[in-house]
């Protein structure tokens, strides 16, 4: 076994993992019995249903609502679509159009045998699987031929609201050295129970995630990558009420990273916990199969809770998120767990505490490309001090050898980044990373010193919390406000009405196909 640089007892780490495994197992048993509106819409998309009806309603919504209106959602969209294919000899897309026109009711057709339904669906299923596989191979061959930036990857956001303006900003960022461009979503999209269609130019604080917008940005970054001789990764947000749908759109269009947390929507968007936990599973199965790196969102806990007192809640959640992701078939290398430097800058030796926490997470999750988040809570509008806070964050990132450095902007807390803000941030990070490239490997942390002791303390507190969660179950822990000091009820929040227990005819062959790969 490798040695912990920060002196952690790996037996304690393994014990924490075993607690998280037990917590995640219980969630997994629950999840596998259920489906949701968004999972069924995702399955429609996976057999070729796309586009919108005359009123602008996405056809996957039309099909799934059509089934749900007859109170038959428990049997799933694929059962009815497959059955309709047998009966009508039409493709799913054509069936969807006829449902939209009110010409066809697929819940009232004669039921074919399971064998016939499976055979009817087989071609469409294989078509989608092939598209995603090709995307994955394409990414691998581009990284092989073009190369990529060194770690930590420089991750910046664009958030203009207009996908075409986003392209200009993203190209500028890539030219300046960004390795990952994340297109922030418009505020409120997480609560839409559908995914908008087509290219969009109006958003608030971000741009709608749509399949067309994904495609436009992917093509732009590919052009940049060719020119710069460096593969540029694209990131979006697979969270909210449409988690698995966003996942499949990203898989089809060759996205590289997705924010895809198991609990974020529950805590920060008040989405029902059952809905989110069911949705996160299928969305992660898709992301796993598509070779996408997921980013978890624990860093956000520290925007509502104190970064020193509550550091262990981040670690405990990292353990749980890891186990849930492993259940979905993701490899360790695809699990970009969240961590953040949100310690109050006025705390004496705050940087030592942060160094301890940043090194600790590397030691505990050595294969995970940790998503390391910059200061946001204590950014004040003093852009000059903010630039320095980001510099300290960059030093911590390179010294502890993080995977993904989400660059802080000096104008955080003022506005979505200007083109020049991104330039200043990238310059800041490149300067520090280059000057301190190998500093981390020169450093050993003193036995019994502040840094080693802090790491031990956080791990032990995380273990105590995991023991409590294991007793309460994850649902109970959310009800009692263990994460981010936010309490959520099992039956409360948005989207619970979109959850149903799977019925006798239910089928989702993608779970098996995608997890086997």
């Amino acid at each position: 076994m490798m040695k912990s640089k920060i002196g952690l007892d790996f037996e304690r780490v393994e014990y924490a993992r075993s607690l998280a495994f037990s917590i995640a197992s219980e969630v997994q048993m629950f999840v596998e019995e259920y489906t949701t509106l968004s999972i069924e819409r995702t399955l429609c998309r996976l057999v070729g249903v796309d586009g919108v009806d005359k009123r602008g309603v996405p056809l996957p919504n039309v099909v799934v609502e059509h089934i749900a209106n007859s109170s038959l959602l428990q049997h799933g969209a694929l059962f009815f679509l497959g059955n309709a294919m047998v009966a009508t000899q039409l493709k799913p897309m054509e069936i969807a159009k006829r449902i939209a026109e009110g010409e066809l009711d697929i819940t009232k057709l004669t039921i074919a045998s399971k064998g016939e339904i499976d055979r009817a669906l087989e071609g469409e299923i294989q078509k989608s699987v092939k598209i995603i596989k090709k995307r994955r191979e394409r990414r691998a061959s581009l990284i092989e031929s073009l190369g990529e930036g060194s770690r930590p990857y420089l991750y910046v956001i664009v958030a203009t609201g207009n996908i075409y303006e986003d392209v200009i900003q993203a190209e500028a960022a890539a030219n300046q050295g960004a390795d990952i461009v994340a297109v922030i979503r418009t505020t409120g999209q997480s609560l839409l129970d559908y995914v908008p269609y087509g290219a969009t130019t109006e958003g608030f604080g971000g741009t709608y995630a749509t399949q067309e917008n994904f495609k436009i940005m992917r093509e732009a970054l590919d052009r940049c990558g060719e020119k710069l001789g460096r593969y540029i990764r694209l990131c979006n947000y697979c969270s909210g009420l449409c988690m698995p749908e966003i996942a499949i759109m990203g898989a089809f269009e060759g996205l590289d990273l997705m924010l895809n947390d198991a609990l974020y929507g529950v805590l920060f968007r008040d989405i029902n916990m059952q809905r989110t936990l069911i949705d996160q599973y299928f969305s992660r199965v898709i992301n796993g199969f598509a070779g996408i790196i997921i980013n978890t969102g624990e860093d956000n806990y520290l925007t509502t809770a104190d970064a020193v007192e509550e550091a262990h809640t981040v670690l405990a959640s990292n353990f749980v998120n890891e186990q849930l992701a492993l259940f979905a078939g993701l490899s360790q290398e695809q699990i970009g767990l969240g961590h953040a430097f949100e310690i109050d800058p006025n705390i004496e030796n705050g940087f030592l505490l942060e160094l301890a926490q940043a090194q600790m997470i590397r030691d505990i999750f050595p294969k995970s490309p940790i998503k390391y988040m910059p200061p946001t809570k204590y950014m004040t509008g003093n852009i000059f001090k903010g630039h320095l806070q980001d510099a300290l964050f960059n030093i911590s990132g390179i010294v502890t050898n993080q995977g993904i450095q989400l660059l802080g902007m000096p104008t955080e807390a003022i506005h979505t980044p200007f083109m020049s803000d991104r330039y200043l941030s990238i310059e800041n990070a490149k300067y520090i990373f280059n000057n301190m490239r190998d500093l981390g490997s020169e450093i050993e942390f003193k036995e019994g010193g502040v840094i080693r002791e802090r790491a031990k303390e956080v791990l032990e507190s995380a273990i105590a919390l995991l023991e409590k969660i294991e007793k309460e179950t994850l649902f109970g822990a959310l009800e009692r406000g263990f994460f981010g000091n936010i309490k959520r009820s099992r039956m409360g929040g948005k989207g619970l009405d979109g959850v149903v227990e799977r019925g006798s005819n239910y089928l989702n062959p993608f779970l098996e196909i995608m997890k086997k790969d």
Partner: protein
Amino acid sequence: MQENNIIKAYGDTLNDGKVQLSFTLPIAASAQGIEAAKSFLREMGFEAPQVVFYKELTPGYTFFNCYGSSSIGVDISKIAINGVETPKMDMEQTDSYIREYIGRPLVVVGASTGSDAHTVGIDAIMNMKGFAGHYGLERYEMFEVYNLGSQIENEELIARSLEHGADIILVSQTVTQKDIHIKNLLNLVELLEAEGIRDRVILICGGARITDDIAKELGYDAGFGMNSFASDVASYAAQEFVRRERID
């Protein structure tokens, strides 16, 4: 000394008018680009414009760091100060002020409204922990606090305020792109007026881009912007409540 109450920007000598600016122009980093930046500064009223640094961010867009001297002076005797002007009290003072003059806890209902998903502002003011060493309203003994969180529709905020018998409604707006917050804030005032309860509550909004002027213009009693803390909101609300009781 200042002449006639006129003040100018200060670099290192009184009235030198020195100003430091940075901006991006959609132009290539060329002699023409630098000249364009200087012209831009002259048009803004700067004398002796200096481009001290420039960098093409991406083809056709150049970032400039500049200095210039502005001859523009501001007559401070003509400046009206709006802004919340009640004396500031700390948590203990506010609690004892409420105990003495009101005799019961004030009920506060707060939310980040509309599509705004950010709780950072409302949490900084309302949560126990507060922000930057200033405890939030939950910590006060004399406030009864209901933080509804984010993405709360105005209608729901009103319903919950009625249910709890709110004395004070707090609205936080973080996302301000394309002035979405203005529409949202106006809509709340209109709804409160339509319900006939606007005058029954102290209506306060806050957020990084909110000022007291903007708030008053939109029909709020007060607005709190950057660098405001729970103690600012608390001491204003308590004193405003007492002021109104006295008028009534």
